[in-house]
């Protein structure tokens, strides 16, 4: 009865909807259009009109060696997040769900880095990696070893991946732990009466029942890897050394706001969206298949 008069609905929807349209949908569409133009200046000025160049930027994407590194790093990051972040978080969650004391304390401590900004964590790891007197080289020095250049071309990617993985394990840990606690105790009890041990229970009960939760985690991990920006930007700005640590986000930023190549940046941005949709689709396809 109360909601029979429809006009108030418009008042409630309109402000939010306008926000979505003005700051998400129109820019998203404009971005696609921009990627097809040669944007001489970021804002069109008289005398510097943009020229339509068609798919030139997209052809350039195919032959850009630095982009290939960035895509490679992003794909590696996706794999690493799924295996180490979600995998290790699952191990921790199973262990914590098996202990009686300190459960809450572990949750609190493990989750803490998630709350801290990637910028601060990046700064912290810079202090660890520094060649002259960084924490790691001080440790090496203490055991009588030569200092190591932690951000050398061969090591840099791994050294950037570590804090990204480390800082988010607590996030997946909490999600998986909640999933674990949703599995009824009765099932485990029935299984142990039938003589199924703790280890086998993990494989035959926990893992199958957790599939939907894993699907959520893997989707978040894969799409999250596409959004990586702050941490590598702080630890190794501009993909240092030699562009080897570029991720899609940092590469797009550098091209756009570092080199003022706005149209190529637009094409890169659109490519990131496409990759996100494809990645989410692939994960969705596999997880749905198995649930049936």
């Amino acid at each position, binding site marked *: 009865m109360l*909601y029979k008069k429809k006009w108030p609905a418009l008042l*409630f929807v309109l402000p939010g909807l306008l926000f979505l349209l003005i700051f998400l949908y129109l820019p998203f569409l404009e971005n696609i259009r*921009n990627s097809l133009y040669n944007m001489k200046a970021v804002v069109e000025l008289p005398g510097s009109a943009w020229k339509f160049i068609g798919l030139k930027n997209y052809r350039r994407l195919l032959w850009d060696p630095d982009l290939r590194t960035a895509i490679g790093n992003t794909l590696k990051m996706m794999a690493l997040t799924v295996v180490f972040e979600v995998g290790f978080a699952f191990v921790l969650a199973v262990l914590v769900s098996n*202990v009686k004391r300190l459960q809450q304390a572990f949750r609190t401590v493990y989750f*803490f880095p998630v709350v801290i900004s990637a910028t601060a964590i990046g*700064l912290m790891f810079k*202090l660890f990696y520094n060649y002259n007197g960084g924490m790691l080289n001080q440790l090496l020095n203490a055991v009588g070893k030569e200092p190591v250049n932690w951000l050398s071309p061969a090591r840099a990617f791994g050294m950037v991946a570590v804090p990204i993985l480390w800082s988010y394990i607590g996030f997946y840990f909490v999600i998986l732990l909640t999933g674990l606690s949703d599995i009824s105790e009765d099932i485990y009890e029935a299984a142990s009466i039938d003589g199924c041990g703790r280890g086998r229970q993990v494989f035959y009960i926990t893992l199958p029942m957790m599939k939907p939760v894993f699907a959520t985690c893997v989707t978040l991990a894969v799409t999250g890897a596409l959004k990586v920006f702050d941490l590598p930007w702080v630890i190794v700005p501009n993909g240092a050394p030699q562009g080897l640590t570029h991720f899609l986000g940092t590469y797009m930023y550098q091209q756009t706001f570092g080199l003022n190549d706005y149209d190529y940046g637009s094409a890169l941005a659109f490519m990131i969206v496409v990759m996100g949709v494809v990645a989410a689709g692939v994960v969705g396809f596999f997880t749905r298949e198995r649930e049936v």
Partner: protein
Amino acid sequence: MTEAGNGNKVCRSGILIYTVLGLWGLSTIFPFAWVLLNSFKASAEVLNSSFALPETWILDNYVTAFSRMNIGTAYRNSLIISGSVTAGVVLLSAMLAFALTRYRFAGRRLVNALLAASLMFPVFSTIIPVYRMMIRAGLLGTKLAVILPHIAGNLSFATIVMVGFMKTVPIDMEEAAYMEGAHVFQVFGRIIVPLCKASLSTVAIFSFLWSYNDLFVQKIMIRDNTKYPISNLLETISSQYGTDFGLMAASVTLIVLPVLLVYMVLQKNIIKGLTAGAIKG
């Protein structure tokens, strides 16, 4: 005999489990503790003996952070930005969710679809046109240039969380209030909002933290270092004073400490807020 043996085994595996869990706990605490400790040392001392207690506890790094780096101003800027983002997201998402759960109107499904689809746009895909928009509107360099895209970036997800919750709120009380002569806006303000306090605080927490921790949008929209919010300032310190270990340690401590304090008080809500969407309820 067997029972004792069994107990022993359980005990031993228990110790092993606690050791693994404890070690991981240590790995999350230790880096922060190391930074805190070194923030009280001169840079030269950090370089040589970063694991020892400071020879003399000094506050120079903190003094530098406030006087030379203006970290206090950066805090204020961040609080204004993230506070406005939070208020905007909470209000707009509550209004949207209210209309979407209480009214059947033409275009309702379209709005729902627009909300869900916009989750697939990472900030990269909209930032260049938004940047152009801010230049043309003369807003580049202002807090508003960060606030508006931050609200838009959180609004869809917040609305989806709010819709999920509002659906479960029974409609009886609203009907009763209507019978007594309340109009829709009173029902929204006096009944819906108070009933949704818990999920609104979830939305508030993740919007605030997301905005407070973001570097990307801040970096693009604000170039004047007297107007920097906190992440921006930290990045500058990192790139310009990267060899001043003491200052870096103090800066990290200064950004982590307030978050740590809030986290200790509100940890349950914060954990819930940041995992919202992944976990039902």
